[in-house]
């Protein structure tokens, strides 16, 4: 069974551009979580999608946005890129609504570099 897949694995953008990151959850999982992992820091919660709706978001500016498609895959969009947006962006999926009793499975991440 395929795990959580993310694309691309690496992305290089210039400041001010937009970046689009993609995530495909494990089959049967309806919740997708996005996390930012800056160098030397822990995972910072970005967004949570479930059943096509944004359920919660972390303390990030509105230029971080996303969506979830009917097949439960998800996109993370980052507009007006800034240098400090350079990080590893991780996607995780889990069953409906709760991570309780079900570990969230993570993808390998997309390394975004803003120059």
């Amino acid at each position, binding site marked *: 069974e395929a795990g*959580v897949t993310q694309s691309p694995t690496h992305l290089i953008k210039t400041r001010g551009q937009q970046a689009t990151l993609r995530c495909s959850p494990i089959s049967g999982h309806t919740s997708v979580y996005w996390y930012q992992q800056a160098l030397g820091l*822990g995972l910072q919660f970005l967004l949570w999608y479930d059943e096509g709706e944004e359920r*919660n978001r972390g303390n990030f500016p509105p230029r971080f946005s996303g969506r979830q498609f009917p097949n439960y895959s998800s996109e993370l969009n980052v507009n007006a890129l800034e240098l400090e947006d350079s990080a590893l962006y991780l996607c995780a999926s889990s069953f409906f609504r709760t991570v309780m009793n079900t570990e969230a499975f993570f993808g390998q991440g997309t390394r975004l570099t803003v120059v």
Partner: protein
Amino acid sequence: GESVGLHLPTLSVQEGDNSIINCAYSNSASDYFIWYKQESGKGPQFIIDIRSNMDKRQGQRVTVLLNKTVKHLSLQIAATQPGDSAVYFCAETSPPIQGAQKLVFGQGTRLTINP
């Protein structure tokens, strides 16, 4: 506020020794905790979890201890092996509020196994 922190950013142990990684959390409502292992270039992998109604849980070579009184969590790895070298994150979640739930991660501890 919500935060999950780690006492030590780095830990070096001799191969074969036991290692203990500590984690403190501040949200007294947290009721589910997970330890993740992240190897270089990979996404976090689930190691072990524990609910707040337990104070100890054992897996294969790993034990998680939970002390709710002082809001402290630890991961014990027995007979460490070179493959245990990684960054270890603790994460916590609390009961959903209006359906919203997310994992809050600590900064991580880098465990290095010396031959």
